[in-house]
């Protein structure tokens, strides 16, 4: 598993993107009118950029990237084929949403956004199934689904909070109502808290295998919990832009580092039956 860096980038980027769309979806179903969100197009474009960066990482993993057009030929049997197809569908949905927001912003609502949320959900499901190999017991358990869902919620909530800060905090002219901003901050953080809770649940489901070490990076949960505490302080000191920026930066570093460490641990836990 020397070459897992590209896969760490791919999985985390795509999961962060799916989480971002889910955050917007949750906000929309929570009563936020999407066209009222400042810079919705920029938000969706950033999410699309994350997917493209993830796909770039995936290309780096391939020995023969120029043959990659063959990669969706086994849709009936291979979850890797399904993953590639579903991430492509997710990309297409995001492009459609961006175009729609440019051409007919009045049509943007939670039901239209479902196109992105559902295709993102499909991509996430296919991504988890790729690792549910019956010959790899260290991955073939429900903890894999929970761990990937956890990263989706945590990173989605985080990047939406950062974008919200950049769009409204630094440019007060763009801000929505105070109530709307506060609601969004709470929704995004709630997503991340749910994500971290799932991570602890997933850790409990990991099978105990002989050579799978659980001792590496054992401070990762502390790192992420610390990040969450900083995030809470960030919300509480509303109004002080400088300290908010510092806190948000530290939060991002803690949570993203924690996610990267967790994903490296996941790939290092690979243990196959047989030879």
């Amino acid at each position, binding site marked *: 598993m020397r070459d897992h860096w590209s896969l760490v980038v791919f999985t985390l980027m795509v999961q962060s993107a799916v989480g971002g769309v889910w955050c917007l979806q949750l906000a929309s179903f929570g009563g936020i009118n999407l066209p009222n969100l400042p810079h919705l197009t920029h938000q969706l474009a950033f999410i699309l950029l994350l997917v493209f960066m993830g796909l770039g990482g995936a290309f780096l993993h391939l020995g023969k990237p120029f043959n*990659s057009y063959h*990669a969706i*030929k086994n849709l009936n049997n291979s979850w890797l084929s399904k993953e590639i197809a579903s991430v492509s569908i997710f990309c297409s949905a995001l492009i459609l949403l961006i175009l729609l927001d440019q051409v007919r912003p009045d049509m943007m609502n939670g039901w239209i956004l479902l196109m992105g949320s559902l295709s993102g959900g499909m991509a996430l499901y296919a991504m988890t199934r*790729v690792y549910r190999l*019956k*010959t790899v017991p260290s991955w073939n358990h429900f903890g894999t689904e929970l761990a990937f869902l956890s990263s989706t919620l945590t990173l989605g909530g985080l990047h939406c909070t950062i974008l919200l800060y950049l769009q409204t905090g630094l440019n007060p002219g763009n801000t929505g109502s105070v109530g709307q901003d506060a609601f969004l901050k709470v929704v995004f953080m709630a997503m991340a808290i749910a994500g971290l809770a799932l991570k602890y649940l997933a850790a409990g489901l990991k099978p105990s295998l002989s050579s799978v070490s659980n001792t590496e990076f054992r401070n990762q949960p502390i790192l992420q919990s610390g990040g969450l505490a900083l995030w809470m302080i960030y919300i509480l000191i509303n109004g002080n832009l400088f300290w908010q920026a510092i806190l948000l930066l530290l939060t991002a570093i803690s949570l993203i580092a924690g996610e990267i460490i967790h994903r490296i641990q996941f790939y290092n836990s690979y243990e196959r039956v047989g*030879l």
Partner: protein
Amino acid sequence: MNRMPNKPAFFLDTQICTGCKTCIVACVDKNDLDSGIRWRRVVEYTGGKWDSMPDGTFNQNVFSYYVSVSCNHCAEPICVQTCPTTAMHQDKHGIVTVDQNKCIGCRYCRWACPYSAPQYEATKGLMSKCNFCVDEVKTGGAPACVAACPTRALSFGEYDAMLNLSAQHLTIAPLPDEKLTSPVAIFKPHKMGKPAASKDGQIANPEEIKDA
């Protein structure tokens, strides 16, 4: 004249395999494989211990045997199921091969195969694996590994005929449970052979069989 068996299968008598690795050398030579690429590997499985008895003597149950393994051309090949490109495919005889024109080098087949059969050729960025020396077999010859085996522990032929060579054909450690992929290969168990997935022993030569 085509002398290809309908369902070719390898047979290994682990009782007489000496672990000489001539099969590996023959395979590398025949297929001109790069250094580190091994379509066939010989696993040394060892275990047991010495116990001191109350009367001051020692009793032992140590064991060691060799299992020469290549692709088993499984009836339910997980590499074929997982390959996203269909580069990994199975022909009408059940032989699993890689179409390198389609392979993208994602190594997903290597993750999945419990026999380490698909090997990654880093210089080409592609997977390769045992093809049963089809060119030889079709003309009445034998796969290079079989032809070279000095003790005749390795042989090949029609699957049903190979089954008759051994009264017992249980899967032995360190091979995985055969229900996972239904390998089309017969391993005549060593007299000290441990059942599949047994934890009684360990692979003594992991460096020689690790993924390329």
